[in-house]
């Protein structure tokens, strides 16, 4: 497959591994891959094993994992509404709220349909004019524009039985919150490649300018990740922290202005509750007032009680990079992919699920 296979080339990977090892020989460094797709790609390629002196820790970059228990409970509440069809990406199906999950609701007859695209959810609304079709809008800046496009299309068509429940979050404020927390030592960031397609490089500038840390916007193939590690090490060696784009074949410094424009047309910044990180100002996306008829939060009564996270669950600390999945007392015992306690074990890209699936042995 073009533009995938080339970046899985074993010979190129080998020389990058040699170079990175050479650069990392004299000190231990700690890089955070913010994005869950990177976590999985790193495990899947077996990259960690090459570099005993590089600690790669997962960040809060799995949109499913950072969705608060309360927001999951809202979603569950939605499935109980009359004449309502809930449409969702497959990612959300198994996530446990305080007492149920979509999967459990489906088994009891809730009409929940998995779609691949928000456009498919809009199609469900067209095919079911007598039902209220709600799409669960979960995701970062990569996904938000696609959902904005579906809302704009619904508005154009007058598809009034379509709405979205926005639990969108945006990445840069969360990275800032992590750095302000100063709890975790990070020597550099592997920045999310596909979020950056939309937002470009500028929103990360503060990492280099204010915190003097290297940051590399990175693709998802093994060679991409290795090249990014090499770039991070070179920045450290030269003591010249900057935001660099490794994934230059798809990420432009300015991002995708059209996607940003559509996203901003439909959504406005809002405070958001991140699992593990708490409420971060302006880190979420709420539907603007002018699109209120497509906003499930306004169209339905989704008030739920605040419930504590499951006892013992360390997802919060894991999402901040303060603990490794294996350091959680529940990991692999009461919490496993088959019976997840916390969201990091549910999502395929959760750091616990990835550590369980690829890292044990």
């Amino acid at each position, binding site marked *: *497959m073009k533009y*995938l296979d080339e970046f*899985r080339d*074993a010979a190129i*990977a*080998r020389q990058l*591994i040699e170079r990175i090892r050479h650069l990392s020989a004299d000190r231990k460094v700690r890089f955070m891959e913010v994005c*869950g*797709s990177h976590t999985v790609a790193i*495990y*899947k*390629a*077996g*990259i*960690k*094993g*090459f570099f005993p002196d590089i600690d790669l820790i997962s960040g809060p970059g*799995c*949109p*499913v994992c950072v969705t608060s228990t309360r927001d999951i409970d809202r979603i569950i509440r939605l499935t109980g509404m009359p004449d309502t069809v809930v449409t969702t*990406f*497959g*990612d959300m*199906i*198994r996530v446990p709220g305080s007492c149920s999950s979509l999967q459990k609701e489906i088994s009891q007859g809730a009409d929940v*349909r*998995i*779609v*691949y695209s928000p456009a*498919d959810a809009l199609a469900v609304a067209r095919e079911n004019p007598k039902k209220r079709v709600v799409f669960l809008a979960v*995701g970062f800046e990569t*996904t938000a524009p696609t959902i904005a496009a579906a809302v704009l299309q619904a508005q154009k068509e007058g598809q009034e039985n379509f709405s979205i429940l926005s639990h969108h979050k945006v990445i840069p404020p969360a990275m800032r919150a992590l750095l302000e927390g100063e709890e975790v030592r990070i020597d550099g960031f592997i920045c999310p490649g596909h979020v950056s397609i939309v937002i470009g490089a500028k929103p990360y500038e503060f990492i280099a300018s204010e915190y003097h840390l290297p940051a590399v916007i990175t693709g998802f193939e*093994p*060679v991409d990740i*290795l090249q990014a590690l090499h770039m991070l090490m070179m920045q450290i060696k030269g003591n010249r922290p900057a935001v660099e784009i490794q994934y230059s074949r798809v990420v432009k410094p300015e991002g995708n202005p059209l996607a940003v424009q559509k996203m901003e047309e439909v959504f406005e910044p809002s405070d958001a509750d991140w699992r593990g990180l708490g409420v971060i100002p302006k880190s979420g996306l709420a539907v603007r007032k002018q699109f209120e008829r497509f906003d499930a939060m306004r169209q339905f009564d989704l008030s739920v009680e605040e419930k504590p996270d499951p006892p013992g669950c360390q997802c919060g600390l894991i999402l901040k990079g303060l603990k490794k999945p294996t350091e959680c007392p529940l990991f692999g015992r009461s919490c*496993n*992919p*088959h019976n997840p306690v916390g969201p990091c074990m549910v*999502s*395929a*890209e959760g750091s616990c699920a990835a550590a*369980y*699936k*690829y*890292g*044990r*042995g």
Partner: protein
Amino acid sequence: MEEKRILLSHGSGGLMTRELIEQHLLRQFENPMLSLLNDQAVFPSPSSRLAFTTDSYVIDPIFFPGGDIGRLAVCGTVNDLAMSGAVPLYLSCSLIIEEGFCFSDLEKIIISMKDACLEAGVKIVTGDTKVVNRGGLDKIFINTAGVGSLQDGLHISGHHAQAGDKIIVSGFLGDHEIAILSKRKNLGFITHVVSDSAPLNLVVAPLIQHGLGQYLHAMRDPTRGGLATILNEIAGQSQIGVVIEEDLVPIRDEVKGACEIMGFDPLYLANEGKLVAFVDREKADEILSVIKKTRYGQEARVIGEAVAEPKGVVHLRTAIGGTRILDVLSTEQLPRIC
């Protein structure tokens, strides 16, 4: 003319049941044992040891590129027998049909079963038909059980893989599940990939004829859960380790492409016409060359080997030379954005 449909009375045991059996089932499955219409089939034991298995088929959609539920119901049970090295001989066939099911679809399924039986060289010698209320099940479920004869000296079992064994897969993995998924409307992708549904006794029989049966230590067909899952099963049963090479696992570009889009891992996709064999390393080349000459084994290759340690664990050597665990499938794969 209105389409003829299955009615509840077709399952009543009365005249209409008889009509269904005689005019539709017997006509296609015709053989002396079945034609007696007794409650059981009686046959002489073909060998001192027999293999016996059963499986139920509940697939959606019932017709898919490369096959249908009927072909699957014959091949699946034949394959379960063949994985012991047995020669599949006789099958039972139980149909559980939803009221209102079209006779024309039933006919297609029955003909497909007949064709698969002819190809595999097995006979349906006993059966049963039930009809349930509309909505009581989705269209049609089929159960088949099968009996096969087992040559002396064959001891193929998930417990008999040994450190040092070479691991052979008989062809491209993942075709069946991708073909099925491509028919699900909500995923909306188009592919030419067809199900690999096939009787694997046609791959196993030549090995036994060539006197290679004793060098086959463990065999399994990677259906639900895919390659990763059965490698883990055998590693656990035989208390060995397994190491496979990512680069050597045969997967079509179309299947890889579909997996990229959906966020699936091809090593967990279901197959219906592939086998995985743990074989004596000294005979691996010979076994591979015999498999490659069979109709359903042309793309066979060695993908790795069994090792002494760590026991019960499967490792994958990645294309770039890294190593990671290859775990069992814990939950079904769903199309993801992340």
